[in-house]
């Protein structure tokens, strides 16, 4: 009987582990991480309370696409990361060289791999938990996910620099360059294809969240796409604690500018020229949906209150708490014809969960900044 001991790299005998397999899956994983990083940076910037240069208002579906791609790219990265880690797992048991310059290089590479694996698993795990609006941690998701993303992309660059010669040698060669496995079993090409298949299945099973026509296929997506007036809700009126204020008969939208405050009751708003715009609502959690919104152009309201064009305004909800109860609307958004004080969704008055009596809806703006239960606009 053999005694238990810590395994060594040569104890792992599967011939499926080869630089040819690791390189191919690694490249796909690197691309998906790159896409996640760029779209994540954009989302982080778009959510800044007061960005130096505002995100452009066109195309209206911009944030919808970038954030959908962000979440989907992260989802597809899960099988890629798991198989990638499996192919290199034996290297965890590499014995360090004797004290020398090589040992330092060895330890530095180990440190970069530790940072890469820890940050990669962290980003995918917290991202997947966060999209279910579950926060089983004490840190701020946005701050920490953002900081760890920089660690991941930095250690990924180091890893690419270290492994470039291995990849260049392995890629041009056939994956199964030593023939089919002797005892049958999976070929390396089979493993690579199974990994692509796993990424494809993961995408199909979840993409309906952001790609409407896949909704019936995506049985594991976080949202079915249903909700009041056919539209999902991220923050309910109950969660925001606004039901009483929003349904009060004394409701009026206050617009203040230069010491002067105008109040618009719901009747006042309904008696102004009504417009209809088809605009998407796109949440940071990746779900998005296009809808037909009716209401008054924000610019018309601002004109009536004497707010000149080119003014950046601050939009406040009736909510008393919440990180996003107030948001800044840059002048380019406030003056855009498509930006509405929406009163109607799909031809019906807004439901309370969609922001009754009035909400902001603007093109290319993260969902959290599409302020619901509008209470006050100040210039």
């Amino acid at each position, binding site marked *: 009987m053999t005694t238990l001991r810590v395994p060594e790299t040569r104890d*792992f005998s599967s011939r499926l582990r080869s630089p040819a397999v690791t390189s191919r899956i690694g490249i796909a994983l690197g691309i998906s991480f790159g896409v996640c990083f760029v779209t994540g940076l954009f989302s982080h910037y778009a959510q800044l309370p007061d960005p130096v240069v505002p995100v452009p208002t066109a195309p209206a579906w911009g944030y919808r696409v970038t954030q959908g791609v962000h979440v989907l790219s992260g989802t597809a990265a899960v099988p890629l990361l798991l198989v990638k880690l499996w192919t290199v797992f034996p290297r965890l048991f590499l014995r360090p060289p004797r004290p020398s310059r090589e040992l330092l290089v060895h330890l530095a590479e180990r440190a970069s791999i530790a940072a890469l694996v820890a940050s990669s698993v962290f980003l995918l795990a917290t991202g997947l*938990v966060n999209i279910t609006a579950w926060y089983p941690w004490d840190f701020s998701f946005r701050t920490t996910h953002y900081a*760890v993303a920089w660690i991941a992309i930095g250690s990924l660059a180091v890893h690419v620099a270290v492994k470039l010669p291995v990849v260049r040698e392995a890629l041009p060669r056939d994956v199964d360059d030593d023939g089919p496995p002797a005892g049958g079993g*999976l070929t390396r090409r089979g493993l690579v294809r199974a990994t692509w298949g796993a990424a494809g299945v993961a995408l199909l099973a979840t993409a309906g969240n952001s790609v409407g026509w896949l909704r019936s296929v995506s049985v594991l997506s976080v949202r079915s796409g249903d909700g009041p007036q056919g539209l999902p809700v991220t923050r*309910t009126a109950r969660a925001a604690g606004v039901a009483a204020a929003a349904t009060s008969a004394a409701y009026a939208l206050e617009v203040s500018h230069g010491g002067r405050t105008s109040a618009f009751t719901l009747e006042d708003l309904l008696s102004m020229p009504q417009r209809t715009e088809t605009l998407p609502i796109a949440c940071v959690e990746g779900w998005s949906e296009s809808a037909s919104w009716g209401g008054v152009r924000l610019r018309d309201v601002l004109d009536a209150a004497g707010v000149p064009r080119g003014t950046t305004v601050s939009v406040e909800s009736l909510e008393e708490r919440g990180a996003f109860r107030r948001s800044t609307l840059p002048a380019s958004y406030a003056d855009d014809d498509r930006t509405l004080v929406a009163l109607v969704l799909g031809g019906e008055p807004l439901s309370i969960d969609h922001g009754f009596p009035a909400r902001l809806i603007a093109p290319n703006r993260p969902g959290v900044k599409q302020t619901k239960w509008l209470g006050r606009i100040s210039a």
Partner: protein
Amino acid sequence: MRATRGVVGAVGVVVGLYGAWLLLSRTDTDQLVSAVLWLGGGVVLHDAVLAPVVVVAGVVAARALPGTVRASLAVVAVVLGSLTLLSLPVLFGREPANPTLLDRDYTTGWLLVASIVVVVVACGTLVLERRRRGAGPGGR
């Protein structure tokens, strides 16, 4: 190539350290402890639990099963294993107060995908096996 690698590596170090600085400077101690637990927890769960289980399963399968069955099982394990792992939050997560969130029957959904994957892989294996036999010594 040496120069390119040097530049990419150096940029990587700077970018990674910037991330570490962001993490340390923008989170207070409680938050940092929680973040470090999640960072380390992921590595420990993978390296000490998931990976050994998969390796042992692979060794057992290699000894006990014929090649064709093993190959099909490996494909099912790659596809369904990763899909299950990424679906853990919807399968076993918290029940949200929001009726438009997690509003599907995820257990049924998972069973449906699992059955489709198993059937597709089984059919694929049969077709490949047939083709292999047809092209074998007796076939041509």
